[in-house]
């Protein structure tokens, strides 16, 4: 089971975080900080897997990360997941979907489309389990949802002032 998904920038600011096991806010922040410290001290030429994370993550927690430009994409999961597959889930599914949605994604896209990021993530992972691995399917679902949001909210009062927060 996937325990958490984090996107952290290279300065340690969380850009997206989702925990699939309940954690209080303070603990979430502590975990994010801890992951950031571990990652920022890692040289570039080493493996993308970390097993010895320390006690605060609980036993058997593994971490897979992928570093893109200014962002770290991090998945935390337990021993029922395959590390190599998790790496593919980051690079071949999650990031590829983001690329398709944002036309080569960058940190700004992630920051300003916070809510859309969650739509995408929710179409890939549900309750800590992999939901869909085909990025075309994911993009299709995300587009449907976007379309639905713009049509149903059309004509309401908030239409003119609000849409910018979810549409690009």
């Amino acid at each position: 089971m996937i325990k958490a998904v984090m996107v952290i920038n290279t300065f340690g600011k969380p850009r997206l975080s989702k925990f699939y096991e309940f954690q209080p806010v303070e603990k979430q922040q502590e975990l994010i900080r801890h992951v950031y410290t571990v990652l920022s001290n890692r040289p570039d030429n080493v493996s993308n897997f970390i097993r010895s994370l320390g006690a605060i993550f609980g036993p058997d927690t593994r971490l897979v990360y992928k570093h893109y430009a200014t962002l770290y994409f991090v998945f935390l999961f337990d021993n029922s997941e395959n590390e190599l597959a998790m790496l593919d889930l980051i690079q071949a599914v999650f990031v590829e979907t983001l690329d398709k949605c944002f036309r080569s994604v960058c940190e700004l896209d992630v920051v300003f489309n916070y809510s859309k990021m969650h739509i995408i993530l929710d179409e890939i992972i549900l309750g800590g389990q992999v939901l869909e691995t085909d990025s075309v399917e994911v993009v299709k679902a995300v587009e449907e949802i976007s379309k639905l949001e713009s049509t149903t909210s059309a004509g309401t009062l908030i239409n003119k002032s609000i849409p910018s927060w979810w549409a690009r």
Partner: protein
Amino acid sequence: MNPFSSGTRLRDMIRAIRASKTAAEERAVVRKECAAIRAAISDNDHDYRHRNLAKLMFIHMLGYPTHFGQMECLKLIASPGFPEKRIGYLGLMLLLDERQEVLMLVTNSIKQDLNHTNQYIVGLALCALGNIGSAEMARDLAPEVERLLKFRDPNIRKKAALCSIRIIKKVPDLAENFIHAAASLLSEKHHGVLITGVQLCIDLCKISTEALEHFRKKCTDGLVKLMRDLANSPYAPEYDISGITDPFLQIRLLRLLRSLGKDDADASDTMNDILAQVATKTESNKNAGNAILYECVAAIMSVEDNGGLRVLAINILGRFLSNRDNNIRYVALNMLMKALAVDSQAVQRHRTTILECVKDSDPSIRKRAVELVYLLVNESNVKPMTKELIEYLEASDPEFRGDLTAKICSIVEKFSPEKIWYIDQMLKVLSEAGNDVKDEAWHSLIVVITNASNLHGYAVRSLYRSVQAAGEQETLVRVAIWCIGEYGDMLVNNAGRLDIEEPLTVTESDAVDVLETSFKSHSFDLTTRAMCLIALLKLSSRFPTCSQRINDIIVQYKGSFVLELQQRAIEFNSIIARHQNIRPSLVERMPVLDEATHSGRKAGSVPAAVSTSQGVSVNLPNGVAKPSAAPLVDLLDLSSDDVPAPSSSGGDFLQDLLGVDLVPVSSQSGTNQAQVSGTNVLLDLLSIGTPSANSSPSTIQASPSNVDTKSPMDLLDRLSSPSAPSVQVSTTAGSSPMLDLLNGFPSSSPIAVTEGNGLAYPSIVAFESSSLKLTFNFSKQPENPQTTLIEASFTNKSGEVLTNFIFQAAVPKFLQLHLDPASGNMLPANSSGSIMQKLKLTNSQHGKKSLVMRIRIAYKVNNKDVLEEGQVNNFPREL
């Protein structure tokens, strides 16, 4: 209502937060936004509700409190529009959690949405339920989810499948309702549904044996066929990842097969062919392919063995080790470690490749590889493996050396075929990485050397050579110093030379040179230099010609600013100058250190060693809290971590030291000779003539368990003349000028105590907690009214066994406390046994002040450390 009251747009808020230069600025922005949102919430402003919630989620991610927005989620979920619902559900998943009562309120909304005509709204509800559903929600909504498993749209079916996993995890009783629905998902064509369906089956198998049996019987064949179709399928672009068809589904299938095949020969038999096919046919030049192979190996390791498959699997891992991708090597090493338990022979075949990984450029891989190599070493391959590792030690990174040396030391110690080989290898390690060698390792080396009487000369000569070549490695120098001090004569006269040795010419003054250089070197720490001093003292007797030179060196340190060195220098100078008659017996060779005791202690002290490095006072297995010991105390005490040294202040061990040949005054030999726990071994070495010098500081940290009676102290007893009566030095001696003592004036007046007919006093319950009871029984000797003898008895009222039990006590200055060792350190449960410990309290204000004592009891229960403290005020007044 002012439509502009709710402030900025989300985008503007994010911009403002990003523009903040300092954390304080960011906090100010957030505070302002939160205030606006709170105001909007209390105005019940529904036009901006979902924008406000979106802002709150962003603020939440940054780590600020957002609990005040929770009710807003519910309102949004209950509203009819899709955008509101979506933000509401998102907020529900992020801001709330399953423990909150708010969730009770949302169950009904979710139920309605699960039955909504708009499938996207159904999707939202499923997603929320799957992420945060509680047990109550799971019970209430399970029928809806079950129905949705058969929904027409595959996107809903796959979400419902994952939602079911949440439900059965929360309420395992519901598992059987899902077995048939899950089985029918396995015949789906849609890959997304298949992945989730297979995952549902995996989790059902974990939760219910009924499900496991059902799938084993009904689905194994189908799954094998599915796997075969996938593995043989032509290129299918939609689920393809770098040229491999749907690796995620293949991995999930392999994992399900693994659960089905585990401990079941028939199922394993059915899947052997397909596992072999996947293992041989899968492309291994891409990450996706390797992920499948890795999963396949894991499956083969778990299912019932049919011979060849496992070798095939381990060979795949062997191939992984030479892959260029770090990740692949990393997982291979992890898996090989597990495989070792299954088939160590097959793993041994990849030894060379694994050894190569010790030299990897990736530290995490090196670390794994060393761990694996460590497991692979056995009696038959220890020599070549050690050779490789030591050779690599020369080239390794500084930060990796500590790990590597620790492992090498442990390997050679564990598997060395003969002592001379062990000594040789250790010398290599010490010469190469002496500064990274842990204390236990060089301690063990010395123990081995003392035990190998035929190798004393060989060892000291090899050490001499090594020090000439690598004199900067501190632990090497320490071992050399120790051996030169002990066996310096063999260094010079080449005694016991082995055939393989080259002859070596060392003069007496060469040997002293080594000690002098090390002693005067500023790069060595106090321990090393103090060891030099002792070795010099020893040589002064072994090499009479150098005696004057040695004395000159020692004299220079009489003014050392380092207290320990100064003190030693003064003492040793005095020994050399004034006590010629006792010197030879003082500096006799150390008795052979007992290997069994040493290794026993070492095994017991592993956790202690760990915590020492953190600078914490440690609880040793034999139950003594050891404060950081004075360096001198440890000088010759090879296993310094293990010998319990009580909180001996400088004064205490001075007394011990000065116990040398003190004329005993009026003490009854053998009476009441309570050994103070952890008498400093070294110091006792010098206190020849007194079996055990007894110090009784006013505050004692006592050990309940007996002192390691096999410590060298005992051996010394043999040295002591049989007629020597025991001496007790009272604390008061601490105040007496030590020079007097050195000059041989007996100054202290030991407390003479006899076990007399004690007077009877009522016993008291000194301390009682929920789990412990401590009672004191008193007695007094009529001739000595100041002194009270207390018999403390501990009983354990709880249902759990207490281990590592330590009792400590402290008293005010007017009292003197002496604790005897306790009768044990383990307390059986339910008052079924007790620990006894004798205490002796001397009240210098007898008649004026009554007794009082602070106590502290430490123990382990269920491996958890517990500390109880208390004060005993209820001593009978007449004591």
